[in-house]
């Protein structure tokens, strides 16, 4: 079952919250994982793996660097769901 864009955003916010302790409201679509949310590359990998499990998609290592903002990740997951 495909997740809506809002559901993906909400789900990502929960994953970020579990990994970093950041409030879910802070995980807004336009925020940069690195510059705004202060998420380092290792935490980002944990978030990616948990997003794969939650949304049933594959995010290869080489694509992770392209997920700069939360919206980038939402778009990637939405597109991967359609594939």
């Amino acid at each position: 079952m495909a997740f809506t864009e809002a559901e993906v955003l909400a789900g990502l916010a929960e994953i970020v919250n579990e990994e970093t302790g950041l409030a879910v409201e802070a995980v807004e679509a336009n925020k940069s994982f690195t510059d705004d949310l202060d998420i380092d590359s290792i935490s980002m990998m944990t978030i990616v793996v948990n997003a794969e499990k939650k949304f049933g998609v594959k995010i290869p290592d080489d694509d992770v660097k392209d997920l700069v903002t939360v919206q980038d990740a939402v778009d990637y997951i939405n597109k991967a769901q359609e594939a």
Partner: protein
Amino acid sequence: MPTLKTAELGTFSRIAGIGAYRAENLVTNDDIAGPINSSDEWIRQRTGIVTRRRASKDVGVLDMCEEAALEAIASSGLKPEDIGGIIISTVTFPYFTPSAAAALTDRLGTGPIPAWDISAACAGYCYGISQADALVRAGTMDNVLVIGAEKLSDIIDPEDRSISFILGDGAGAVVVSSSDEPGISKTVWGSKGESWSTIRMTDSLLDIRDNRELPFPTLRQDGPNVFRWAVWDGAEVAKEALTAAGIEAGDLAAFVPHQANMRIIDELAKQLKLPESVVIARDIADNGNTSAASIPLATERLLREQPELSGGLALQIGFGAGLVFGAQVVRLP
């Protein structure tokens, strides 16, 4: 046709004794933070490392091997002449050939026994244990010396932010001996050759021979990709090793993963859902990442600081450049 005679099959194998060489120079995060525009806080947060140990210029891989080996042989209640073979896992012995192991036979006075090096990076100690276990159970040797030894400070670049700042030097050794009871489980091991360049040297020696402008080769890694592989693929390997050993996580006394990064260790333990009763080796905080030496060094420290662990079961897993991995359960000496 005559029937060939073969070695008489052995019974079981176990780790009989352990020894360690820890490098003499303590290197703090502040000591190395400058060239990578970093700080003590940044390094601690990303790696859990507070200090690492590095050897002096005049101390080589063989010196480290010798000290660890003599301690392991003595703690096994043996003498050098009782050793039937030597396996050294190292990626920092500075000769293509001859091997470090052959030289060590002479230093230890073992006599003219089989001796060889293996190249399996941070999984090398687990590879060596697997080989020694097979040799003992096949009846080929009664006592095999297995050493993980690295002088990684020879292949670091002070300005590299990918791996150099986590690396240390050291050697850990064990003697694998014949036993009436099983003391080493079947090894779960393998490789992932498509990720060969994930942890790599900057250039080959032939590149440098042909272009003398190139600097001496040093190590690099794609850290986040290594983290992902080591934790989630590593957890599956570790679970397979438990299954192969016929035990559950609750049966373990200790978990001794390769000391690569504290965050890998913590996340691996989380994925494995280890009970609180299982002691987790965290030698990396003080001694850094010593590649093939890290598991025996961490084990030696656990046994020294918590002698009650002796006789208990430990799950050990190594993973590193190749990519290669290996895991088994051992009964602690």
